[in-house]
């Protein structure tokens, strides 16, 4: 499937499903996504999550590129999705 790009602090994006649902108003783990760096497509639930950090970082399980970053601040939640070529909310 892939080279090992993970360690025991790696989680699946499932672990932040609640935060994603609060932000996007829908269950994002079943949405399809495409990595802007390597083109891999897969459900958001398959992305790797790093949560022991000042924010939440979702990375591509194939190339490890950052796909989504989220930071909760007192003035609001910042989301950066430069690493996402697309997200498709499936019907």
């Amino acid at each position, binding site marked *: 499937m892939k080279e090992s790009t993970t360690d025991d602090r790696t989680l699946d994006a499932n672990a932040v499903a609640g935060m994603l649902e609060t932000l996007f108003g829908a269950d994002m783990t079943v949405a399809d996504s495409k990595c802007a760096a390597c083109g891999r497509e897969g459900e958001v639930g398959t992305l790797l999550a790093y949560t022991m950090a000042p924010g939440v970082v979702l*990375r591509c399980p194939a190339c490890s590129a950052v796909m989504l970053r989220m*930071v909760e601040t007192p003035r609001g939640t910042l989301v950066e999705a430069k690493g996402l070529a697309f997200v498709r909310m499936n019907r």
Partner: protein
Amino acid sequence: MPERFITRGFEGKPRATGTTANRVPPGQYLTKDFPVLSAGPTPTTNLRLWSFAIEGLVREKVSWSWADFQKLPAQEFTVDISCVTKWTKLDTRWRGVSIDTLLESVELEPRAGFATAYSDGGYTTNLRLPDLVNGQAFVAYEYDGAPLDPEHGGPARLVVPHLYFWKSAKWVRGLHLTEKETAGFWESLGYHIRGDPWKEERYSGD
């Protein structure tokens, strides 16, 4: 807004008391363990391929191999560190090379005012040059008398103890000197551009 629910019996984290209280910045909790924070996988670095560079606005870029870096004059540092996720750890013991020592090997262009520290794995953080000099910052390769563990940033990490610990880039590989400040990984997503824990500069706008 409804009144905030308080969980019965949940005390959170103890605040510092007594003689150490004045060493703990506002809003921080004391910790004895050393939490591992990371925005990505721990890189595996081959020491034979490792180098540390100072580049950008310097007359001539300088780069040390691991072997060369070990020959630089090293110092012991015992410092208190504060993470923006609210833990503070007192009396952490490091060994490494002061940034002052590293800067002796390069001639800075007068315009150089800022640095971006960059790391294996793609992490970056921005620092003002005055925050890196005069014994305030170093590149550490030992922690508590042993080689720095990869999960804590080994083989080498930046340590800038007077700023929040996200500035102390793990797996650091160099400093890129610039005229203008370029926000790094967390600074570009809501975190404070400088991050002084005593001023509680956590987020942009604090």
